[in-house]
């Protein structure tokens, strides 16, 4: 499972376009819809703040 560390996430939304399932939304903080997330973990690479991790 992929989780967002809210204290690290700044809401820059870099991860959003890289999610092929459109599972991430960002409104101040990134949020992952776990029903849509396939756990591909691509987004982990695109976070400049290291705020996305495997949970």
């Amino acid at each position, binding site marked *: 499972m992929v989780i967002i560390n809210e204290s690290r996430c*700044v809401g*820059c*939304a870099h991860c959003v376009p890289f999610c092929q399932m459109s599972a991430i939304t960002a409104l101040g903080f990134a949020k992952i819809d776990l029903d849509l997330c396939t756990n591909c973990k691509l987004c982990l690479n695109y976070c400049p703040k290291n705020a996305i991790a495997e949970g």
Partner: protein
Amino acid sequence: MYNVAIIGAGIGGLLAGASLAKQGKKVIIIEKMPYLGGRFTNLPYKGFQLSTGAVHLIPHGNRGPLAQFLQRLGLSVKIEDCKPWCTFRIRGKDYLINDVSDFNPIINLFPLIDRLRMAKILFEVKLLGLPSNEITLEEWLKNQVKDELAVKIANAFYGFALSLHINSIPAGEGILILKRVNDCKGSGVPIGGCKSIIDSLVKFIELQGGKILTKAKVVGVDIDNENITKLHVESDQISEVSANFVISDIGAKETVELVGEKYFDKNYLQKVESISPSAGVKINIASKKSFFKNGILFTPDCQRIGGLIELTTIDPSLAPQGQNLIISHQPLLSTDIKKEIEIGLEDLKSLIPSFDQDCEILLIQSYHNGWPVNRAASGLDIGSVTPLKNLFLVGDSVKEPGWIDTEGVASGVEQILEYLSKIFY
């Protein structure tokens, strides 16, 4: 063994790398992310070219330090001027500024007494120089001009340009920035977005024999006699790099953290600690209708948004055919980011009454807390030279005073390279 190792491939690191590679130096650039350009490149989304940070704008167009830097490298990046430069929407009416040296359409909105005071200020700045940096731009402005419209206009301009409220801009710095806007005569859009500049720099560096690594993270350094002797790297390709000089484009605080506080004197650590960033929110909007045809729109009557630009009026390639791309920017004035975004959206709805029918919000991006608009807010930058003999900084914590954002980064790189060229020979 490299002549120069550069940590971070933001616009600062790449400008430095390109220039040094051109001089024949053996250069390696080490970037932790899978892409290059940091907060100055494109973020493709739903067929639009959004950006990782900077609105696709070069603050001083073809006449500023960034464009001049690229020209000296011989790179042909197309920067299209905003024509007119900008429009101010005040009390529902649009005032076009065609010529940066002619603000009369706006000045005429002020009572006679304030107009006389403005003429006096202009004269004084020319004759006596800039106001002090000891007072804020807000204090200084309120002392000079009584009509509160002045504060609103200033907050719109500086909010969009620097992502700062005028109560946190040193007066001298603020006026110097305005003077430079006047000298350089307006902004421009890099055709193809910020990435076109990054791509041409990357291509240039590689053609000159420079090496650029992505997904490579510098995790530590070896130090001997106040010199960095080795970089430890986590990557698929290499695990360590040795170089005569190290240039860091990851921010002053982050560099100190990487190297280790114990290698820096107390004075320097205090200086680094005093740097505070500028934070902001960018809202990316798609629309089939065109709303803003006249350059940057500054919005003094908005609660938060300082300005916006419909980029597709200058570069249609930034959106799918038949669509327009509008980007607004606002400084982050509180830590309640959700509320700040809500206020920004209220502002947009007041600027575009048919917002709900005609516009789609593509992406809302906030920048703060370690991934800010500028690592050092304007006026708080420190110098590029560090207490370590072969370590130098570039990027948005060491901008040259008086230049907006990327222009300050380019100008800072220019200065440190001049300094380095004296050490090299």
